[in-house]
């Protein structure tokens, strides 16, 4: 681990009623890191990710983002979320808005840019994700891969310090997975700090700087991709890898 600590998670716990999903997760995520989180379904990896921007309210422990404990009562969570981008499995583009409005809505309504600046930025971002001609389209007119690239552009419009990806390619047709992963690879190469819950082992191996295995609500193993995949220490990880690789 190197660089500044961007996110620090201390003994994070989350339970839904009697069901403990996260049983004490501690880790640090530094600037420029690309952390891939893998694990069997229902292991709590998505809940962990969603706790980082408080879409899930943790029931214990703390999350510290850029030096501020965001789990502390009285935190302006909206302010924090402006700096933490999130990309969802189901894209969640705003169905009632055009692509351009999807991208400009938050920066404009939150007073970060005026309409004109935001539109200019949207244009740049659409170029960057390879969809410059879709500004006036509606989400329903796009393919899954295009939607996800727009969702990434929408996040980028807020100039986030870190981006969270919740299984960004799991809802895509196989031939569209590549275009989204390619874009994420470019983001990583540009130095974006990313936390990615994924089933794409190839992506974890090639792009991630660290891979984390979560099972039954705890981090069972985390390591560099090379060590992680070639010398898995944890027995449950070995079993998991033998099934997915």
């Amino acid at each position, binding site marked *: 681990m190197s660089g500044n600590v961007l996110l620090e998670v201390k003994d994070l716990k989350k339970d839904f009623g009697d069901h403990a999903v996260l049983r004490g997760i501690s880790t640090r995520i530094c600037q420029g890191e690309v952390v891939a989180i893998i694990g069997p379904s229902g292991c709590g990896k998505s809940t962990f990710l969603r706790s980082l*921007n408080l879409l899930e309210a943790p029931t214990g422990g703390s999350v510290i983002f850029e030096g501020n404990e965001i789990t502390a009562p009285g935190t302006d969570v909206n302010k924090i979320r402006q700096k933490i981008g999130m990309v969802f499995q189901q894209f969640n583009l705003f169905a009632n808005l055009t692509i351009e409005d999807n991208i400009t809505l*938050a920066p404009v309504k939150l007073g970060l840019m005026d309409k004109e600046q935001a539109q200019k930025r949207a244009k740049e971002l659409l170029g960057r994700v390879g969809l410059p001609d879709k500004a006036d389209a*509606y989400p*329903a007119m796009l393919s899954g891969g295009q939607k996800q690239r727009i969702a990434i552009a*929408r996040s980028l419009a807020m100039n986030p310090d870190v981006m969270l990806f919740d299984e960004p390619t799991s809802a895509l047709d196989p031939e569209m997975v590549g275009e989204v992963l390619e874009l994420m690879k470019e983001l990583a190469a540009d130095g974006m700090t990313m936390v990615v819950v994924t089933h794409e082992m190839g992506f974890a191996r090639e792009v991630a700087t660290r891979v984390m295995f979560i099972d039954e609500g705890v981090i069972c193993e985390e390591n560099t991709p090379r060590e992680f995949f070639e010398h898995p220490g944890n027995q449950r990880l070995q079993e998991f890898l033998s099934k997915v690789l």
Partner: protein
Amino acid sequence: MQNFIDEFTLNFIEKNRYQYIAEGFINTMIISLFAVLVGIAIGFLVAIIRSSHDKTGHMKAANFICRIYLTVMRGTPTMIQLLIIYYVIFATVNIPKVFVAVVAFGLNSGAYVAEIVRSGIMSVDEGQFEAGRSLGLNYRQTMQFIIMPQAFKNVLPALGNEFIVLLKETSISGYIGLTDLTHGGDIIRGITFSAFMPLIAVALIYLLLVTGLSWCVNKLERRLRVNER
């Protein structure tokens, strides 16, 4: 044929009897229009309070009041509500009957609009809400810019239906002695003792009004659907 013309003349032309229908028509339009507006205002307010309560757990007291309102308004006949508002609540004050009718039908319709809109809010995918919040928009902004426009589009057919029901429901206004369209026709019937002409005329006017209303709602629906393809 001559018979038809005679009947028509007797019921509508003679002594300008059409004026009863005209006055009733105007009153029906005024009551319906303002009651719809009151119903929309109350309905959206109640729906937002109720669904915000369900989502966040806040506003317990307001939610409780809304639930009582819904139970009473949906649990008693509109006509009884109209009579209570006229003869009990506004018994001692001298206010126009049209105003009483607007209050009664507006309050009544608001309860139905509230549940329609609430179902619309619930029908919008939770992911839309999460996407808005994860960008840093607050609860109100997310509701205003993302959830409500989609909810409104989803419930437009049901809302149109509710407004049709409301328009026809105003035909009970005669019970507080107000000359609405139905009552206007009845006055003519009482004078001429002919049933066919006034009743059919009134029915045709309602039919035309409802058809026009449906047409407007359909047009709005088509317009809001541009984002679907």
